[in-house]
Every structure is written in C-alpha cells, then in structure tokens.
C-alpha cells in the first residue's frame, strides 16, 4: 500500500484499537467487554493488513473472532454480574495499576523514539504467503513443531484441569470417602482410608 493509503487506514484504526481496548476494562457488561476486545484485536488485524502483512492480518481476524466468543462464554459462566446492570466495580489498586501502566507505556514509547532504527529498505514488502510457507517448513520447522506440541499439551492439560473430578476421575460408587487433611496440620501426613496407594497420592485430594 502506498504511504498515504497506509496512513489513511492506520490512524483511525489505531485510534479505534486503543479506545476499544481501554473500554474493555471500563465497561461493566461482560458481553460488551468480550466484544470490545474482539473489536480491538480484530481492528489490529486490519492494521496488519495495512502494514502489508496480508497473511498475518487475515489470520488475526480469523482467530480473534473464535477466541473472543469463547471468552464471552466463560465470562457469562463465571462472573457475578454478566449483564452489567448493577455496575459493580471490579478493579483493585486502580491508582497504582494505572500509574504502572502509564509508566511502562511511556518508557516503551521513549525507547521507540530514541533508538536508532535501521532505515527502511526500498521495496518495503512484507513476505508474502509463499515466503512464510517456505520459512515455516524450512528454517523454522523446529519452532513450528514445538508450537504444535505446546498446543497439544495445552489441550490435554486444559481438559485434565477442567474435567469433572479432576485427573483422578469421578469417584465410583463403592469408593471410600476422599480423605480431606484436617485443617491446620499441613505438615502432617494423613493416610487415606483404604491404605497407602503410593507416593502419587500425596497432595492429590482437592477440597471437594
């Protein structure tokens, strides 16, 4: 895209991205927060497109819609006031976190302004899909492989964490009751009823 075209797209979309990103944390309606985050990161995908990264922009647009919708789901499940009708205040340490945020942003902005970046080369075309494909399958094969394995571990770990009954499964009828360690004696070892079942049982009983 030409310089003027990029500028025409960049300024409004960057403004929208920042404003919607800020309003994610200032709204009290949960569905709106999730959808504002979708707007912010989706508009970031448009910025990627304006900065001549076609594949990355389209990928960002594609993935953000699915992720943010899931986020709305979880917020409706787990938050006390998903509709935002009561206007609960969900922040703590407002002043300190705002100060930290502003401080870090200013520091990064100063770093961006004061560093001597290499001059932009003439062509200014980001790698197209073909080049990215060759990179992924060639030099960065290891990286991609590990990213894939990370996703797999995340899937398995997430299911293990979130499954009913935890990783030991739901108690079948006939199992003895779960041994809950008496409170206040964290250092002591309480043998579960039914005998020791090996080292793996230590610390395995969550408070049910």
């Amino acid at each position, binding site marked *: 895209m030409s310089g003027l075209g990029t500028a025409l797209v960049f300024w409004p979309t960057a403004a929208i991205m920042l404003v919607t990103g800020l309003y994610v944390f200032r709204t009290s*309606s949960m*569905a*709106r927060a999730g*959808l504002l985050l*979708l707007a912010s990161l989706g508009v970031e995908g448009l910025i990627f497109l304006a900065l001549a990264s*076609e*594949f990355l922009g*389209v*990928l960002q*647009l*594609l993935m953000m*819609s*699915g992720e*943010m*919708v*899931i986020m*709305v*789901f979880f917020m409706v499940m787990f938050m006390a006031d998903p*509709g935002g*009708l009561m206007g609960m205040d969900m922040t703590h340490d407002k002043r300190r976190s705002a100060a930290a945020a502003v401080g870090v942003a200013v520091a990064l902005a100063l770093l961006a302004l004061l560093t001597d970046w290499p001059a932009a080369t003439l062509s200014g075309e980001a790698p*197209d*899909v*073909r080049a990215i494909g060759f990179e992924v399958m060639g030099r960065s094969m290891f990286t991609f492989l590990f990213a894939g394995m990370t996703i797999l571990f995340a899937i398995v770990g997430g299911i293990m964490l979130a499954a009913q009954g935890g990783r030991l499964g739901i108690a079948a009828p006939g199992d003895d009751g779960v041994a809950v360690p008496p409170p206040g004696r964290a250092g002591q070892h309480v043998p579960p009823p039914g005998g020791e079942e090996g080292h793996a049982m230590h610390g395995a009983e969550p408070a049910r």
Partner: protein
Amino acid sequence: MSAASPFAIVALALVGAMAVALLEQVVAGARPSPAGVARAALGTLRQPLAVPQVKDAWLYHGAPVLLLLGGVLALATVPWTPGFRGLDFSTGAILYSACLAYVTPAVLMAGWGAGRPLQVVGGFRFVALMLAYEMPIVMAVTAVAAPAESLRPAAIVEIQHAVPMALVQPLAFALFVPAVMAVAFIPPFDLPQAPGELGGGAFSAYTGVHAGIVSLAQKVLVLGAAGMTAALFLGGWHGPLLPDALWMALKTAAVAAAMLAAGRRLPRAELPWLLGAAWKYAVPAAILAIVWAGFVSLAVYQ
C-alpha cells in the same frame, strides 16, 4: 480491485439475494414470484421502527449490521469470472473463512442483545456449533489450496481446468458443503435460529428493518456459500461451450438449489448429535483430507 468493484459487489449481493429468495420459493414447490419477494422486502422497510425493550441496545442494533457486513465481504472474496474477481487477495480463501467467522459474534450479539433467555440460549447454541464448523471449513480450504500452491481463489479455480476438485478430493468436498451450509443457516443445520426451536432462536426478537437486514444477510450468506463451493470444488468458470460468467452462474444456482432442497427434505440435526459428529468425526476427517491433498498434489499435480 477497480473503483467500481464495491458497487458491483453490493449490486451482486442484492440481485443474488433476490435470486436466492426465488430459488427458495421454487424449491418449496411454489411458483417463483419476484413481485412477492420485492413486496415482502419493501414491507419490512415500511414497518415502524419498533424497538422492543432490549437489554443491550448497542449489541441489538449492531448484530444485523455485522451479519450483513460479514456476508457481503464473504461474497466479495468469491471469484466469479476471470475479469470480475472481487477482493482479489492472495490469501482470499482464508479471508473467506475469516468473514464467515464473524457470523458467530453477530449471532451472539443478536441473542445477548435481545436479552430474553431463549434468544440468549439460541445465540450460545450457534456459537457452540460454529466453533466446531470453523475447522472443517478452514481445513477443507487448505486441502483445496494445496494442489493449487496458492490461497488465491482465482488460482484454485485455474487449477481445475481439467478436473473439478470435487472429484479429486471428495472428502474435503463432503466436509466443506455441510459446514458452509451450517454457517449460512440452511436447514438441516439451522438449529439455533429455526422458527420452531426454542421460541424462534437468536434472531426472533428482530422485527421490521432489522428482520429485513437479517433475512438479506442470510440470503447473501447462502449465495456466498454456493459461489465459493462452485469456485473451489466444481471448477468455477471452466466449461466447454458457454461463456465463463454463465457457467459460474449455472454452477452457483445448482449448488444453492441443492443446498436449499436438502434443507427441505432432511430432518433437522439435533444439537448433541451434531456437536459429537463435528468434533469426533469431522475434524479428524478434515485432517485426513489434508493428508490426501498432500498426496494428490505430489502425485497428480506435479
């Protein structure tokens, strides 16, 4: 993309939506009546703008707009003829999936914005199903793009000049068509917003202009789905005697008619069965389709 393309695409969307409405009437066995369709469309515009007491006005009003925007952009990525390709991005096939993916937040916004329990549940049901459909769509598109060595839809059409991709990659075809039917709200996959289900589903709180926009968006989605199927799997504009545009129009119409006819003949798919089938069978089958695509592109297209 020339300066006239946006207007051409919008005109195509409107004319195509009318054509899809007529096709629906034909498939239902009634006589196609363009006057009836036009009267119904204009009737929605004439109704007073009655906004029911909704819980979230921004989302309520924004959902049909997002739905229509997603539908029209998805329509814009379909390559119709070599001369009129719409948004000719080099990642156009993925852009199509991305535009379809924005149907999901639109339905969620519609359900949540209406605020009533059944609409919210309808919206959530659609989200649960759409997450399962997105993967077969993207993987089927990848499987078709592999032999073409490009994600540009026009290039994928070009490589089918000898044989349509539906014959070479039947598994990808069999996965793509139901998934894209589900995104376009075509029965038998229209559980979240069918008239008889759960009080009418996610869109039932809309009246007047909003309902008109939602209906228009649904028809544009059907047109985009049929067009992309014809382009990616049936060879697009390739054909022996007739001109390119006519072949593409015929193929799109045939696919749309087949999708709508399937909707009338088949019983509606149930939610637990559909979710189970999508995650347990469709996603692994989509991975197999990609493996097959790799084999095909090495063995045949080299």
